[in-house]
């Protein structure tokens, strides 16, 4: 995809809601399209935090492995972002991301994104605000998951 079509695609992506044209342009210059096949590992637990993704098509599972099994935490889909922790200079990935079907995404080098934020604080503010919105939504969802709302709470029968 050339920068112009990247711009068009980014303009539509929910993550960039509220971004002005100059900032979308900056993102477009930093983005490149990537594709994954089904069942492909995007990043593993423990990987250094290199890339930030905006998913365009397909589904990705966030998983964590325990002896003998792999536990899925959540499923991400078109419109979601993946790898937000890279933007905060976290050391390593906490979870594994694996595609569940063919995935098309826009990838950003996290280091370059961070650098752009340093150089242009206006852009940096918008990016961090978008990130905060995403992370807060995830926190809400995670809290709801923790509530285990559907668990039976009646008298236990022996």
């Amino acid at each position: 995809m050339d920068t112009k079509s990247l711009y068009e695609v980014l303009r539509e992506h929910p993550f960039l809601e509220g971004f002005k044209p100059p900032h979308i342009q900056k993102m477009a210059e930093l983005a490149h399209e990537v594709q994954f096949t089904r069942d492909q590992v995007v990043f593993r637990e423990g990987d250094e935090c290199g890339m930030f993704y905006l998913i365009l098509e397909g589904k990705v599972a966030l998983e964590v492995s325990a002896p003998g099994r792999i536990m899925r935490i959540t499923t991400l889909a078109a419109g979601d972002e993946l790898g937000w922790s890279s933007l905060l200079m976290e050391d390593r990935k906490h979870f594994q991301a694996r595609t569940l079907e063919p995935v098309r995404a826009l990838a950003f080098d996290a280091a370059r994104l961070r650098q752009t934020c340093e150089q242009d604080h206006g852009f940096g503010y918008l990016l961090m605000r978008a990130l905060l919105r995403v992370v807060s939504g995830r926190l809400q969802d995670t809290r709801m998951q923790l509530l285990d709302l559907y668990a039976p709470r009646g008298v236990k029968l022996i």
Partner: protein
Amino acid sequence: MSCAAAPLMTPLAARLARVDKETHDTFTLTLERADGQPLAGFAPGQFSMLYVYGVGELPISISGDPNDPGRLVYTVRSVGRATHALVNRRPGEAVGVRGPFGRPWPLEAARGKDVLVVAGGIGLAPLRPVILEVLRRRDDFVRLIVLYGARSPKDLLFRKQLAGWARQPDTQVLTTVDYGGTSWRGHVGVVTTLFRQLRLHPAQTVAYVCGPEMMMRFVVRQLESRGVPGSEIFLSMERNMKCAVGSCGHCQLGPYFVCKDGPVFSYDRLRPWMERHEL
């Protein structure tokens, strides 16, 4: 023979025709009249009081096809003494029925609009009749979207039916679980995470929501933040009930009796009361 002075409180002995196991703790009971006559018809969203001889009575939503004359179907989760007794009746035994009671899902409000059904856990049971009714009167509505969340894959209800509904034209069915386990290849996350996958037309949408109260509150917040007005969001509420006819007083929620002013309410009506602690 019915009690002359207390006909409303006397259960009719219906015959348990079959018991179908849906999941490890949830069963669907089909009741028919012992004399072959049709049981009372019902509107989607209504409930009956089911009586287990000598044990007790429970309010249970009707989960069957409103167009299937003569049968009343209930999907019951065994969580305590009374539900355990109910799901352990054997086919051929009698189960007492009173009702149907309550205000149903207002389908007329959704004419010419998208119907968005959001179900959590056992909440899919009181919503199944309205889904079946929408499918039967398909031309009265535009899109049918069903969002369904359960605890884990083994807790999913009506899987075959869900798959069948998904194949209908202009129908979208999205399922998710809170805990995926190891072999689940579908979506994992709370039911509100499914909203991101939808293209809602909020001014043209009527939502029917049923599930644990906390789940319904989160769903309503999502719906309102996406522009669906509170007057077009309908919830099915649950409270302690002993009579189902507005006289025992147990089911009150603010000024409403859930048994006769509900169990289906628009969110506009519920708004002042739902977020109050211990109301």
